[in-house]
């Protein structure tokens, strides 16, 4: 049972980031330990947290008692606060969601579910004043009205919407997207890659991708239900839904439905640690399916 240790290591690494982490783009997210490649401990947490919560919930009776849920939420809150401090709003929300999803699958009562959602909604204005950093507020303002600063913070979202919209139904063709090939679209390899796809392959390409994602998610959920242990079910279910949240948040932000948060498009975006944690998650799910089926 490695889960508590992984969690503990993750929490220590996150504290380490805050104390002696490396800064980049105004946030302190990286840990550069001698002898190891530079990495983001928050990525480690993406796996460690659902692991721990699944382990914890599986050790308790179902349906869970309220006190168990409260204790689990404290365990979720610790990395949440640490990552918020970096600051990294996107990742902290994703990690918290992965923890809460375990609780949801463990049988968290609906009334608690809905009251939590309402409390979060009510707290959102308070976040604006007490938690969010200047650049995060700017992102929200830009989300509400990108045209207010077309050359500054609004640039990304205007260009991505332009790329998507100009793609039309059939797209401009492979490598023919002017928005992306002429560098109007920023981050076209990483967070904004769906805009490139939408521009070059059109609505058809986007729908195909969404269907693929849906198939993966259904398959994941099916595999989760096939697990014989509660731990396996909780962990697999949480991981596959987190995967969906990635997809939803990323496409939502690039198409202007959601504010810009730094979330990659899983399995498509170019990038280091997030691929590692995602594929590790799939590995865990498949291992569960292989070894834990009744």
């Amino acid at each position, binding site marked *: 049972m490695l889960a508590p240790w992984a969690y503990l290591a993750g929490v220590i690494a996150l504290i380490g980031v805050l104390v002696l982490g490396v800064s980049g783009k105004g946030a302190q997210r990286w840990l550069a330990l001698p002898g190891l490649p530079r990495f983001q401990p928050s990525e480690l947490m993406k796996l460690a947290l659902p692991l721990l919560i699944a382990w914890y919930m*599986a*050790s308790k*009776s*179902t*349906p869970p008692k309220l006190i168990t849920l409260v204790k689990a939420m404290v365990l979720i809150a610790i990395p949440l606060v640490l990552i918020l401090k970096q600051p990294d709003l996107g990742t902290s929300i994703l990690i918290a969601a992965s923890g809460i999803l375990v609780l*949801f*699958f463990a*049988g968290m009562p609906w009334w608690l579910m809905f009251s939590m959602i309402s409390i979060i909604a009510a707290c959102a204005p308070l976040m604006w004043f007490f938690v969010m950093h200047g650049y995060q507020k700017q992102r929200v303002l830009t989300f509400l009205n990108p045209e207010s600063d077309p*050359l500054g913070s609004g640039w990304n979202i*205007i*260009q991505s*919407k*332009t*790329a*998507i*919209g*100009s*793609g*039309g*139904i059939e797209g401009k063709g492979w490598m023919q997207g*002017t*928005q992306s090939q*002429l*560098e*109007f679209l920023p981050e076209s390899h990483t967070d904004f890659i769906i805009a490139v796809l*939408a521009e070059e392959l*059109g*609505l058809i390409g*986007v*729908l195909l991708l*969404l269907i693929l*994602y*849906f198939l993966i*998610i*259904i398959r994941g*959920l099916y595999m*989760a*239900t096939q697990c014989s242990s*509660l731990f396996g*079910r*909780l962990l697999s*279910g949480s991981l596959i*839904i987190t995967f*969906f949240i990635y997809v*939803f948040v990323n*496409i*939502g932000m690039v*198409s*202007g*439905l959601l504010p810009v948060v730094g979330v990659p498009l899983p399995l498509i975006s170019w990038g280091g640690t997030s691929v590692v944690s995602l594929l590790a998650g799939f590995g865990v799910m498949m291992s569960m399916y292989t070894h834990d089926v009744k």
Partner: protein
Amino acid sequence: MWGHSFRDRMAEQKLFRSRAIFMTVLIFALLCLLAGRMAYLQVVLHEKYQDLSENNRIQLRPVAPNRGLIYDRNGVLLAENIPSYSLTLVKERVNDVDETLTYLKTLIDISEREEKQFRKHLKHNRRPYQAIAIKHKLDEKEIAQVMVNRYYLPGIDVEARLVRHYPEGATSVHALGYVGRINQKEEDRLDKKQYSATKHIGKLGIERRYEKELHGQVGYQKVETNARGRILRVIEQVDPIPGEDLVLHLDQRLQNAAAKAMKGYRGAVVAIDVASGGILIQYSNPSYDPNSFVTGISHAEYSGLRTNPDLPLFNRAIRGQYPPASTLKPFLGLSFLEAGAVTWQDEINDKGSYKLENDDRLYRDWKRRGHGKVNLHSAVMESCDTYFYDAAYKTTVDNISPFLGKFGFGRNMTLDVPNALSGLLPSREWKKKKRRRSWYAGDTLNLGIGQGFMLATPMQLATATAVLAGKGKWHSPRLMARLGNRPPEIDSKKLPDIVLKDSKDWDRMFNAMTAVVHGPRGTARGLRRNLNFTMAAKTGTSQVVSIAQNEEYDSETLAERNRDHALFIAFAPAENPSIAIAVIVENGESAGRTAGPVAKAILQEYLLGAKG
């Protein structure tokens, strides 16, 4: 913890399954939301974003037309466009402007003023990705220094563009003027479209007068650029239409002759082609190099020009207003004849001064002992003031002033010389209106010798002389001879030709003026030596207004600056005049010794130089 009952596990699985199904439905709904959002952008708003995307990629770039060239009458190039290299910076491509500037300063000289200018331009009306000039007129070494280190200088470039150049430098600036950078005031006034790629505009002289024609029509390039503004290819091109070339009446050879003859003097020379009114010479001395103004004159150089006591920036040829003094006498003489106040035969006995009835004041002749018996011919030849006092008094200002007006005195008659002043032709009405005094007989006497209120520019004197030489035929003075392929401009300004009661009076006045040079007692008889043509002329010496006694200044300067101005008008050859000239030498005292030889040298160059 492994002790769960079978029923518990069944319940757990059931619970999980139901929640998984709920999630599947929710996920499907959310994916549909995303698909709907994408479809909305890609289908409903497709056209809008298609346009936006095209506008991103395609840019219309204005292309500046080449400015028309300016030639003198013999095809000598007076204004051309030569390539000049500027150091430019695109802010969007530079990481840190201050750092880049500091580094550039280790490579080449960037003055404080250049840096200030650059920062000012950087702040003001700049399009994104527009290159801003840091330094102009880079020499080859500087270009090399920058280009070699360009790898370390993203966003820095050396840009070649054509700039105006005046190969003849200082000798013709007072006629040509110059171009300079468009300033804020001009920018507000100009056609934004036509000048979208133009950096310079005519500021003075011909460059300003024919700005529209010289400028040409802006062209366009439809280019595909990437987000960094780099041009990837030209999709479509509308070539600019270059400005029209301008041929002037000006004769650069004569400008050079004037510059040479005027060396060391303050003053001006204007010469006019009698047959056309074309301005052959428009020269003011001292002069300055217009090339300094094109890319921005340095503060030190400019204040040097401004504070120079010899006023090089002052265009004496068209803005210097002097009492014409005795050079007015041929015109005055004709006015006496026309009014019937005198005839050629009438004589007076000059004892050296003239007195009005009821006035104790003595109006002195320049010659203390008087000229003795004089008629109009000898009065012109010897410049006898007493004769002119008497005749002016008899003719009265009401006859003199309108007649002088026919020669263009008192108004700016130039067709295409910007900023030319109109001098002052006094009259009874003028004095009443402007000075609130009535006209006195003494005023008439002063006017009778070209002094008093009367003021004329060298341009006006030359114009009047040309009309005189043409026997009353009027041509407004002009610089432009041909503009592109256009028909010559119609002389809209010209005055009616002057018709005398007796047209022989022209010849008689010519004779009198010829006698000024060739006669035994002519005031410019010193010019006769080595003169291979006949020249009709008139000298003048105009009093300089005395300076207030309580002012402090260098006594030597005072003495020099208080001397009389020397004036000289002439036309030649006297038998069949082709050129009329007016020369003024400030504080030159004796016209026969200063202004006269200048005119003679130039006329000699004009009439004989071409053959030799």
